């Protein structure tokens, strides 16, 4: 071991890194999805203030590098007296980031449900919330699935930025190993392969969903 090479212990460390990457991705997706749902609903709200707040939020986050959001969360919150561990700061930043993007993606999906569907529901005396919940959202959900799964790939890849605030996910684990064995090419090649193994299935799934959706629209109108 003294001459230093990649050993089983290192691979184990990388797998732990993978686990944390997945963990952070899941937190980002669930938290960001919930906040993003709220952002999307605010974005199309009849209340002007809510609409403007949602637009401001989306523009602000989309106009800022995720890295900077991450620093703001990590250092900013600690200045405010909150001593946050890397995971919490990284989760916080990822949720913020995901909410702005998913909010805007989902807003588009909701608005791509034809106006005539709103109108038909309105003429059946459904309240605004009923129209949204019973008629529009179920249709928007179908439209939203492929781009949402596609965006999950971005989430997984962007969790790598959390390495910068010392959170030991996959990239950070690789850096630590590299510091001891100095084989960056090998290490990062392995890391790239691991990311690919996580993202590729998501891409394939997203493409499948997209094809199925198009097929659904092309169904012949005969029984």
């Amino acid at each position, binding site marked *: 071991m003294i001459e230093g090479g990649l050993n089983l212990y290192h691979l184990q460390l990388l797998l732990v890194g993978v686990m944390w990457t997945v963990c952070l991705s899941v937190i980002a997706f669930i938290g960001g999805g919930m906040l993003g749902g709220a952002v999307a609903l605010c974005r199309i709200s009849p209340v002007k203030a809510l609409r403007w707040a949602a637009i401001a939020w989306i523009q602000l986050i989309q106009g800022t590098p995720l890295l900077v959001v991450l620093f703001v969360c990590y250092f900013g919150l600690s200045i405010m007296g909150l001593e946050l561990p890397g995971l919490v700061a990284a989760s916080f930043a990822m949720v913020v980031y995901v909410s702005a993007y998913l909010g805007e993606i989902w807003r588009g999906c909701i608005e791509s449900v034809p106006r*005539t569907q709103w*109108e*038909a529901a*309105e*003429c059946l005396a459904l309240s605004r919330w009923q129209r949204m919940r*019973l008629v529009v959202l179920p249709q928007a959900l179908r439209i939203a699935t492929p781009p949402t799964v596609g965006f999950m790939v971005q989430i997984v890849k962007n969790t790598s930025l959390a390495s910068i605030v010392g959170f030991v996910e996959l990239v950070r684990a690789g850096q630590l190993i590299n510091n001891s064995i100095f084989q960056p090419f090998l290490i990062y090649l392995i890391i790239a392969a691991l990311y690919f193994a996580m993202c590729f299935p998501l891409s394939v799934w997203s493409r499948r969903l997209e094809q199925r959706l198009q097929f659904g629209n092309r*169904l012949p109108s005969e029984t």
Partner: protein
Amino acid sequence: MKEAPSMTPVVELKDVHKRFGANQVLKGVSFAIPKGQVTAIIGKSGSGKSTALRCINRLEVIDSGSIQVCGHAVHDSGIELRRLRMDVGIVFQSYNLFPHLTVEQNVTLAPKAVKGLSAGDARAIAERTLRQVGLAEKAQAYPEQLSGGQQQRVAIARSLAMEPQVMLFDEVTSALDPQLTGEVLRVIEQLAEGGMTMVLVTHEMDFAARVADSIIYMHEGKVWETGPGAMLRDPQTPELREFLSHGL
């Protein structure tokens, strides 16, 4: 089988004006529709007939004038829209069924959500209205599995399920070929025989002449000529004569 028309009309428009931007679509439209009667609104495209219909259930908000529908002041911005929509059913040219729901779910949605009916009661209504339009056996199908004519009949059943006082039909056969048009018109005719108050914007002149108790001919945003179905055989104005002569 028709009820005798009562004195107070179910729908009454008085001097209704409506513009879209620079385009003055309705230029003082007035008409009244008595209970239990079928009224057909005819006219060229752009004559304002569809807009007039859509104003009746406030899908379009009028600029001036007044509209009374089943005791609701439709022109009043403080109107309780949901009460109005419970009394007024509408069927659209493009059916607008909910594609993610089965035929039965399309029909039971509003009775359950708006009137709070139990699943069982709502299903009973769906069964009855679907039988009325001849599609009881399609209850579990999805809209995309049906022909245009069948979809339109489901849309009629969906509207009927709310038991409206008035039914509005906005060019409901315009997207259908002649054979499918026939099956939809037969359903409307049955409703007419059942005494439903109906207003139809239509291009089906033979049908209008046969089924409608009165006909409103609209031209350039105004009511140009009104009369019983027979007026189509004996037009009084040159505009209506010309409109009818275009093979419609």
